């Protein structure tokens, strides 16, 4: 079937020029789905970059003061406002879920059905927690602080607009990820990836590499959060 042995191929830049000069595949040993996910993520990076660039441009050019996120996103704990507390917790939750996803991928490689399934499920729950906390954060901002997409009591109008748009878009990504995580947890437990059961829509055989692809997506969502955290909450 294949005589491709990745360990025998040269690495580094020499390997790169040889890979690019070779026939059949440019990304040696990379599954089609995985390659597709990578390119998709590249495209998605441009989406989020455009959002963040737009945000930076507008924030840099408004003359009204930009609300100070540290105060806006503070949570009252025991009567003391703690800055960015909820955001910090959300960050930790998302990183945790990213870690569990990494382990799920590792067990997926090893075709360890049980461990893989549990870790995927754990990741899904982490993601769900994140979405839940985000819903809490949104409702607090909307109902308690009176932040609206078209204005807010703290300063420049665009604050609310960008906040809801960017975190909303990110939240949508997380939610889609969570749905897929649950679906794939079921698939793993059912043994689809061991039996190569065919997909309902695509009629293609299932494989553990799907877990790795899903993992890429999930880590990307985490990655985007790192940037949002830095640019939106810390700036």
């Amino acid at each position, binding site marked *: *079937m*294949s*005589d*491709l042995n990745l360990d025998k191929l040269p690495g580094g830049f020499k390997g790169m020029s*040889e890979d*690019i*000069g*070779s*026939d*059949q*595949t*440019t*990304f*040696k040993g*990379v599954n*089609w*789905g995985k*390659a*597709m996910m990578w*390119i*998709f993520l*590249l*495209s*998605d990076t*441009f*989406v989020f*970059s*455009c*959002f963040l660039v*737009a945000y930076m*441009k*507008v924030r840099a*050019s*408004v*003359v*009204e003061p930009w609300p100070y996120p540290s105060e806006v996103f503070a949570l009252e704990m025991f009567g003391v406002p703690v800055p960015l507390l909820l955001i910090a917790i959300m960050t930790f939750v998302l990183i945790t879920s990213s870690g569990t996803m990494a382990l799920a991928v590792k067990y997926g490689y090893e075709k360890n059905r049980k461990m893989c399934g549990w870790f995927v499920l754990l990741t899904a729950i982490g993601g769900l927690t994140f979405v839940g906390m985000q819903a809490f954060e949104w409702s607090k901002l909307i109902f308690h602080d009176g932040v609206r*997409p*078209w*204005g807010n009591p703290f300063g*420049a*109008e*665009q604050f*609310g*607009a*960008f906040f809801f*748009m960017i975190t909303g*878009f990110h939240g949508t990504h997380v939610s889609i990820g969570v749905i897929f995580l649950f679906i794939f947890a079921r698939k793993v437990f059912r043994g689809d990836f061991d039996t190569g059961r065919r997909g309902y*829509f*695509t*009629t*293609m*055989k299932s494989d553990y590499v799907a877990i790795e692809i899903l993992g890429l997506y999930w880590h990307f969502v985490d990655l985007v959060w790192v940037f949002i955290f830095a640019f939106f909450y810390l700036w």
Partner: protein
Amino acid sequence: MSDELNINKKRNDQIKTKSSATSGRGETDIDYVRPAELPEQDLYHGHSFITKWIFCQDAKVIGVQYTLTAVFTGVVGLILSWMMRMQLGYPDLFPFLTAETYYQMVTMHGMIMVVYLLTALFLGGFGNYLIPLMVGARDMVFPYVNMISFWMFFVAVVVLMASFFVPGGPTGSGWTLYPPQAILEGTPGSGYGILLMLISLSLFVIGFTMGGLNYVITILQARTRGMSLMRMPLTIWGIFTATVLALLAFPALLVSSIMMTLDKVLETSFFMPTIIKAGEALSYDGGSPILFQHLFWFFGHPEVYIVALPAFGIVSDLISVHSRKNIFGYRMMVWAIVGIGALSFFVWAHHMYVSGMSPWFGFFFATTTLIIAVPTALKVYNWILTLWRGNIRINTVMLFCLGFIVTFVNGGITGIFLGNVAVDVPLSDTYFVIAHFHMVMGIAPLMVIFGAIYHWFPLVTGRFLDEKLGKWHFWITFLGAYSIYFPMHYLGFIGVPRRYFEMYDSPYMTSAVGMNEFISLAAFIVGAAQFIFFYNLVKSLRLGKPAGKNPWKANSLEWLTPDVPPTHGNWGEKLPVVHRWAYDYGVPGAKEDYIPQTTAPSEVKDAEVEKT
């Protein structure tokens, strides 16, 4: 110049078989090609009419579906352009053409032609049909996603067309959709029209991303044995680079669409500063209209190359096949395509020299823009050098290629005018711009599309298109289009601004009345000539001369399928194995004047091939 080009001694050191370089055991076997890395692709074969022809997963059918849908929108765009020309040539003659409808037509014509016709036709149509065939794959790597991609596009078209029928009509904000005007009263279709436009664009982007991922991964990861990147036909290089550009540029369009939708629906102020309407301040505050322009052109400029690069690639192949000569400077052509693609992300604001952006950007963008002129010019040189010392078949395909060269060089050079910042100041926003971009990304790519259809129609249907009708079609289209857009530059010199419903009564504009009438007449004729083409398509589908296998004696893989037209799975039992690039025409020592890509070196022992 010709002295330098005298035949050099054969550079035999260039002969380099990848096989011997990588395998170690193949030093003596000149036919050696690395064994397959991947198992055979698993395909879903449709059984019913619906799965075979409607919700079909075969890239070839999807390609045809894309083509037909795109051509349909193109006809709508054509009719719109007729109506515009009616108004411009004979103002006040047609009472149903009000300023509102005129601006709606301008907008829809622009958007349809750029996005829904050219982009969809080149990437969705030609891309789907040709990529798997030309790289030797059985199908796209994700046939199911590919199918969804087409239906997304279809829905996007339906939404777009629906905007003709909503209250207020389609948006009339110009195809650039610049806020604040696009979503404010005073612009036609600022209610439902603009919303449907934005939704349609978003759907298009989503659908296109699905298709685009397919094209990219098929080209990168599903080539057949022996098909290295540097053996791919330039068509594939053009489509590949354009798809990568699209995947990276459409996000900016998606983002700006989303933001503008929010500005419209939720009254956010991303692009909307304080605006006084009828003496009252609207609720917007502090937004930045120029930001939209940056986002739009960060998409919009790569978009120009999304249309142009596939045309470059396809025309290279057509010229090479029909002048029976290898494409001159293949490697430089590839680097030029990739270089133009990469640079196109650093030039966007040359559309905005007089937009009020930071004036210092003028230096940066003028420089990057003119740098792009160098690889583009090289491509032109290589096309005509391919003709040089060739054996040129003057058929309809070649005629369209020649027409492409003339219109493209013309439009490219006026592009240098507009890219050069100080020259752009008097010319921007005038008819010079209109003439420029119609010449370079309207007529020139259309020439390629027609040429490509005349070229590949025998593959798709097994029959030739009628040559005689084809020649009529070409001459009317080429001469007509040239006489529309060449004089139009001079309207720009006079100073007539674009997007003028009527030229009003300015003295220097009224001097152009005669020219406007002439342009309108030419436009009606050129538009009508397209119906010769449609007639030809329909007629030849039934009655055309049967083509048989490889009628043009071409080298590339799409002509080498066991069945013509190719069936689902393309290659029958065995995938082809590629031994050479796609341009071995007129090789000294070979029996025929062409050597198909699948011909093993041992079969043509005497051929003095330079490159593999």
